[in-house]
């Protein structure tokens, strides 16, 4: 025991008073019993009053003297003696009660946690399978994971990020499976975070990943404990962020964003089929609008004669070039999607009805867009929704406009150029040193493989 490091209660109390000037949700009480007196200070908003009454105030009068009382408080697992004043204040801000006796300062954890209970997953649904999702409390989330991964190899390391928010992070990994260099990299980057407030998992992504300007996510956010556990068992690292309800899984490669938990739940051939469907959807949603522009405006001879004639006939009344038609319809579709996300539930159906009516029949009857364009736009929208992660589907949603631009300046050549550029761009990305897009991405998980030079 290093006594000299401990705080002097008088000085500490004075320092604390200076720091807390103007903070009105602070509660300070003097407890007196004969000659003995102690001060307790805490944030009303952060602490559980029942706990303080039972364990601190009642006990003080029940127990014989202060040393015994202090022993009693020390027996609580989360109580501690702070070494520095800043430590004391930080713990108080987190829901600790500071107890000042004549010669000691003690902290007693009485944190009051208001969180919602465990809800079913809302953004990553499965057909058959577990339904729980993470809550906003990091301890509950850790509990959900430990339940599903009962191994002492599952290591958890605590960190905080954000100067003002002091958001708690828990780094989780299986130490027999994890790649140590990646783990180091993750810890370094997390401790490099300089922003003041970390409120969501994407704040972490923004301030840790390079380059900052990206179109595709390189960290996966999951609200599902089962997916987190699956990833941990594959040697990845999970970062739980307090107050977010998401875990961050790193390193995440392109293919991971096309995996839904259904693939594992269903029989293997069905899982492969589902994945194949998603990749086909990816190609369609990115390329269909661009191909429409290229095939109607530049290279109608590519398609079978009958199809070219069909498109031309359907476009007969349309008074502007095809790229304008495509942009017009896609923008209408984007507006509709955005509106239906933000609208209150009561008005939601109205928006879709009105939008569907306008996009569906009225626009073609007015001769503003061709019938085939309507089919194409709905195909693009549907295929975009097939991608299971919203961050990825957003990136893809944006990238199709790049392809339309290329197709309207270069035709088919532009699409091919875009594809080559897209592939090289994706393969040049790294997530914590791992290649982001690679054929046969699974093989990096094998360790000690002789041929991997």
């Amino acid at each position, binding site marked *: 025991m290093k006594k000299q490091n401990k705080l002097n209660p008088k000085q500490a109390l004075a320092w604390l008073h200076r720091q807390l000037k103007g903070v009105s949700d602070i509660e300070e009480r003097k407890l007196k019993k004969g000659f003995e007196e102690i001060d307790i200070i805490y944030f009303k908003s952060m602490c559980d009053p029942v706990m303080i009454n039972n364990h601190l105030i009642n006990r003080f009068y029940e127990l014989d003297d202060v040393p015994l009382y202090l022993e009693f408080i020390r027996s609580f697992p989360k109580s501690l003696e702070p070494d520095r004043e800043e430590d004391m204040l930080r713990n108080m801000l987190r829901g600790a009660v500071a107890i000042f006796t004549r010669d000691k300062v003690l902290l007693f954890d009485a944190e009051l946690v208001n969180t919602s209970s465990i809800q079913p997953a809302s953004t990553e649904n499965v057909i058959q399978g577990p339904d729980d999702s993470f809550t906003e409390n990091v301890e509950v989330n850790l509990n959900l994971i430990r339940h599903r991964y009962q191994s002492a190899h599952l290591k958890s390391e605590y960190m905080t990020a954000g100067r003002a928010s002091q958001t708690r992070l828990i780094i989780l990994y299986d130490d027999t499976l994890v790649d140590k*260099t990646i783990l180091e990299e993750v810890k370094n980057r997390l401790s490099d975070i300089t922003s003041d407030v970390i409120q969501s998992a994407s704040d972490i992504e923004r301030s840790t990943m*390079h380059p900052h300007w990206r179109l595709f996510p390189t960290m996966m956010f999951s609200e599902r404990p089962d997916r987190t556990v699956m990833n941990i068992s594959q040697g990845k690292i999970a970062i739980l962020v307090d107050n977010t309800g998401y875990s961050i899984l790193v390193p995440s490669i392109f293919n991971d964003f096309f995996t839904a938990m259904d693939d594992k739940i269903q029989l293997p051939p069905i899982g492969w089929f589902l994945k194949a469907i998603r990749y086909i959807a990816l190609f369609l949603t990115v390329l269909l609008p661009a191909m429409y522009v290229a095939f109607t405006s*530049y*290279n109608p*001879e*590519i*398609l*079978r*004669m009958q*199809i070219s004639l069909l498109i031309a006939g359907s476009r007969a009344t349309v008074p502007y070039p095809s790229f304008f038609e495509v942009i017009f319809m896609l923008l209408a579709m984007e507006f509709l999607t955005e509106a239906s996300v933000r609208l209150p539930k009561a008005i939601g159906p109205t928006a879709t009805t009105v939008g569907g009516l306008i996009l569906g029949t009225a626009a073609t009857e007015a001769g503003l867009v061709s019938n085939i364009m309507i089919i194409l736009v709905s195909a693009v929208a549907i295929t975009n929704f097939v991608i299971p992660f919203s961050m990825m589907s957003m990136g893809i949603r944006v990238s199709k406009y790049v392809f339309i631009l290329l197709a309207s*300046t*270069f*035709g*088919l*050549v*532009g699409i*091919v*150029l875009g*594809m*080559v*550029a897209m*592939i*090289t761009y994706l*393969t*040049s990305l*790294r997530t914590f*040193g791992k*290649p982001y*897009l*690679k*054929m046969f991405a699974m*093989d990096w998980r094998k360790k000690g493989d*002789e*041929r*991997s*030079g």
Partner: protein
Amino acid sequence: MSGVVRNKYFYYLFLLNASINLINFVPGIMLDDRFDGGMMSILLSIPIGAGLLYLFAKLIAKFPGEGLPEILYSTLPGWLAAPMLIVAAAVWYFSSVITLISFTDITDRYINPDIATYLILGGFIVVVGLAARLDSESILYALEMVLYMAVPLIVYMSWRALSSPFFSYDSVRQIITYTWNPPTYQTMAAATYVFTGYINMVVFNRVFHKFRMRHIILIIMMSIATLAVSMLGPIGFLGTIGAGEHEYPAFAAMDSLRIRYFIIERMIYVFYFVYMTLSLLNSIVHWHVSKELIIGVFGFKGSPSPKGDKKRRRAEWWIIGVFSLIVLVISGAINQYMLKDMAIVFVDSRFAGEFVLIGTLIYAAVKRKRRKKA
């Protein structure tokens, strides 16, 4: 964190070069000599080309993780190493110039006659230039992806071509009767081009740390198939005489194929799509290699990392800028005949250069070994 890749990427580099062989200047040069030793040079090129490839693979395996600049500067005096690197870079760069310009021409003729040639070439240059700046590892991954998309289509198209009722096996048989004519140096040089993909290893070897050459028989079979298809395919479709009269025999041959049960009717568009991606990738690889060789002369060491240092970045931009400018100037200055002459000069000098390269590597390996013993 510059990565390390598996041995299979060596085969991809070979495969890229071999498949591009079907449409670049090589079939044109070989078809010119179809009656005088074209077939013989195919037969002879296989032992020679495969021998060079094997020797090179054995030699480069002695320098794990090193590129040609590091090897040369550590074993040769600087005044000799620098010009050698620059010449190697220039030769390698010019093959991509020929590829880019001829593909722009193909695009102009077969796909997009409405768009200005400069615009198309500009698009090519932007993509190639930006991608060539990436690190070697990323380029290899991109190459792998593209090959997995392209090779099944190439196999399908070759099968459709060879099984077509309009493919005249009689013409092929007739050309085979000319097998015993003695070959010329030029045709030999062209025919061995199919093996030349290994030269890219002078830079990409930096990401191979335990490189070992295996399955050379696969490479030989691949090359025989490629050479046979690239020479005899056009002959089967265009006839023994007609095959020599086309600027792009492979495209002309493919344009005679029809897909009956798909929304695309003419095979040439599939062919164009495949070969445009491969040509772009090939140019990216070539620019990357030349850029790295030149940068080696200026004393920047090692392979570029995803982050990289600033000076190196700036030097890269300058080199890429000069490369782009040269392509634009050349494309404006020359015509089709000059392009073909350029291709012949390239092919000839490359064939001789391969021997020089391997000789240098043998010298370097011996010197390195002696130094280790001493």
